[in-house]
């Protein structure tokens, strides 16, 4: 298998077959919470792609060069969550200084990302699947893309849903859950897709 095919297979797996939100149940809070408007969904998605890729880079480095050589693997959870929290803070400060326009559109979402379990999830999964450095970065990137894809799809559906007649008890969250179920059903169709 040449290099390009490998990357392609990784992308398909992370975006569709093993979609973080619909198949692995990671990052549901923003998926339900920030999917009311299309542009905020897109903003959140971009912020998550960025942070997930960065988190994959740093947690891989910490795991390989700090935790394993010093036999500190049991500190993984603490080390990773602190890395992610400080990373998010750092990214927020850098964006605020260098790109105020971008900060305006992403700013409100950044603090929320620390408690997004998809970020910690991708970091731990990278370790468990024993990816190499490039693999870990790509996995983080594509998992973020998959998250953004379903988030934007959901926002599109929910914008139209505002004008639909929904039974009063099902308005808001309950109907969003049912729609997510429908989407997950559709994504089950990707299962077994292999290259």
């Amino acid at each position, binding site marked *: 298998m040449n290099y390009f095919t490998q990357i392609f297979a990784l992308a398909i797996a992370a975006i569709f077959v093993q979609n973080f939100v619909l198949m692995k*149940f990671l990052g549901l809070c923003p998926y339900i919470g920030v999917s009311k408007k299309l542009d905020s969904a897109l903003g959140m998605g971009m912020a998550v792609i960025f942070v997930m890729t960065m988190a994959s880079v740093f947690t891989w480095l910490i795991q390989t060069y700090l935790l394993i050589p010093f036999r500190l693997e049991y500190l993984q959870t603490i080390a990773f969550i602190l890395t992610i929290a400080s990373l998010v803070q750092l990214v927020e400060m850098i964006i605020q200084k260098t790109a105020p326009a971008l900060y305006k559109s992403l700013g409100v979402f950044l603090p929320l990302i620390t408690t997004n379990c998809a970020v910690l999830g991708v970091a731990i999964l990278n370790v468990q699947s024993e990816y190499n450095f490039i693999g870990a970065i790509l996995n983080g990137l594509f998992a973020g893309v998959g998250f953004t894809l379903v988030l934007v799809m959901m926002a599109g559906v929910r914008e139209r849903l505002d004008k639909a007649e929904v039974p009063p008890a099902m308005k808001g969250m309950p109907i969003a859950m049912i729609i997510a179920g429908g989407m997950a059903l559709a994504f089950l169709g990707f299962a077994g897709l292999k290259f």
Partner: protein
Amino acid sequence: MLREFTKGFIKENPVFVMALGLCPTLAVTSSVVNAIGMGLAATFVLVFSNIIISLIKDFIPTKIRIPAYIVVIASFVTIVDMVMHAYLPAIHKSLGLFIPLIVVNCIILGRAEAFASKNNVLKSILDGFGMGFGFTFALVVIGGIREVLGAGQFLGMNVMWTSYKPMLVAILAPGAFIVMGLLMGLMNLKKKK
């Protein structure tokens, strides 16, 4: 005093009413055993992090309180992770990724911020137990529905009639979303009355 304990079950149920901790709720409820395992693990972390945080609340500067809470929570999650790995390897394996992810479960950080950082130790313990059991209760309800519909079993025992064909979809990912959506709708309906 007792109210701090009972409020977690129905009135302020973290899952059904406040919609916190959705990821583990949907991910681990494909069977009742997993649901109980997850619920008790989260309860343990919740109670102990509530104790520690209510004890040290006066020493933490307000500006860095969230990272401080996260470190406390992460330590207890690590303990749970290692204990379950040693004594309950089967459940540890099927919960997998979601044990370390208890760290980012919004219920625990939410109780630390909203309750333990403002109340004394005894109240915080009761609150931790109440919320933890409320979470476990919600998980068991969802897990029960999914296991009965999807496998025709409850806690591994056959409960449906013999010609019952299990609806496989209920224990797959879509079933989790649909059952959760319907339960939330039911709660809303009850609240409206």
